[in-house]
């Protein structure tokens, strides 16, 4: 118990003293997670709505999404590693715009693959939960297919918010994939979770626990935002 109290104190001290190493790690974590979430949401939410509005959905696509949600992140990391490595299918092309391994961009690719199926599948299930009578009514009021999609998305917004916050929580707490493709390079690709692994391995439990508290605070902030958005979306 004393260790936890000490760690909490250490976490607060690190945060309020603007420890450059810690804030650098938080910055990389947030950049990686928010960018991956933004890409997943920009592509995944419209895709989820489109799938939800189709009278017949290809079952293989739905099954693929649910499979994507269940793939261990470390396997996704391994796939990205294999593709981006110098001898990999993509890495061997040597194109300037293709990210190299052990960069934040490579981590963003792995994390996008992690969040994308979750955002699409949860958006799809939220859209399917919207009363069919609402869809029929919106069309009867003269909506185009695009306007219908916007209306349904608006009705399903609580679920979509859950998809996004759930996606963020999964990304900020991910360790396996980012360790593989990011390499935990100090000052460059080190994120909160990989830093925790490193500090624990080195026996710096106070610092590891402090970083753990930061992850908890970020997860709590995300959930607080979720609760706020869900409350306001019921108006």
């Amino acid at each position, binding site marked *: 118990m004393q260790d936890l109290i000490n760690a909490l104190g250490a976490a607060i001290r690190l945060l309020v003293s603007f420890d450059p190493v810690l804030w650098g790690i938080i910055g990389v974590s947030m950049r990686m997670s928010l960018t991956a979430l933004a890409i997943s949401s920009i592509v995944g939410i419209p895709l989820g709505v489109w799938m939800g509005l189709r009278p017949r959905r290809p079952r293989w696509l739905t099954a693929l999404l649910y499979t994507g949600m269940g793939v261990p992140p470390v396997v996704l990391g391994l796939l990205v590693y294999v593709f981006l490595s110098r001898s990999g299918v993509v890495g061997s092309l040597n194109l300037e715009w293709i990210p190299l391994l052990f960069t934040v961009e490579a981590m963003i690719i792995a994390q996008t693959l992690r969040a994308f199926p979750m955002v699409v599948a949860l958006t799809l299930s939220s859209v399917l939960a919207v*009363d069919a*009578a*609402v869809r*029929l*009514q*919106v*069309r*009867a*009021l*003269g*909506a*185009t297919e695009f*306007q219908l999609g916007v*209306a349904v998305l*608006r*009705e399903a917004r609580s679920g979509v918010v859950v998809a996004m916050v759930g996606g963020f929580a999964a990304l900020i707490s991910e360790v396996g994939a980012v360790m593989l493709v990011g390499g935990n390079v100090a000052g460059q690709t080190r994120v909160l979770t990989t830093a925790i692994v490193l500090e624990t391995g080195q026996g710096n439990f106070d610092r590891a626990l402090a970083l753990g508290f930061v992850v908890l605070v970020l997860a709590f902030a995300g959930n607080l935002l979720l609760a706020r958005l869900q409350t306001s*979306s*019921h*108006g």
Partner: protein
Amino acid sequence: MAEPMYALSGVLKRYGHKTAVLVERLDICRGEVLALVGPSGAGKSTLLRLLNFLEPPTSGHVDFDGARFDAETPMALAQRRRVTTVFQRPALLRMSVRDNVAYGLRLRGEAGAGSRAADALRQVGLQDLARSGAATLSGGEAQRVALARALAIAPEVLLLDEPTANLDPANVRLIEAAVLEHRRARGCACVWVTHNLAQARRVADRVALMLEGQLVEVAPAAEFFSAPKDPRTAAFVGGEMVW
């Protein structure tokens, strides 16, 4: 008789092997109220969906205001926007009452949506609830908001799918009055699906009986109730079960 708003010829709607609607011929005129009666599952709601162009017929033609409806043409959306439906369940959106009523106008990008929504709310006596959330309304209020939402877009055809089922007599009276006043002021055509024969007698110019997807008899209201030509109509009006 006024010019026909709709002219249906040989309209067939099938779901798989099941025939939901088969209407050989039906004209619906501008400014008339046609009540559509019949037992549950007779195809009345399916016919309304065809009239609102929400589903295409399997075969046959729906001519609307002199033009043949074809879902594949650019005209289809414009035609659909001249018609709307009030369903049995109000299906209000998660927004304020005023925004719900203005919704159809905003879909069309029409100016003055707020003030026209306020006018429509006055027509159904709910102007005081404009700022309320739709979720806070009673069943009767919600249905009146749904009607105001339909009236706000000034449709040329108003389709009503049992809008007063499950409502108390005061709300039924308010909705009937608002629809008939709108018809009088705008000259729109109304097709009103109802299980309430007394209501059909009160509101309709003509009444149609539908059985197993087909129109058995379409006649002026007085004639439909007092001197039906088809024995099945006589049985239905007499309160017997007909198939």
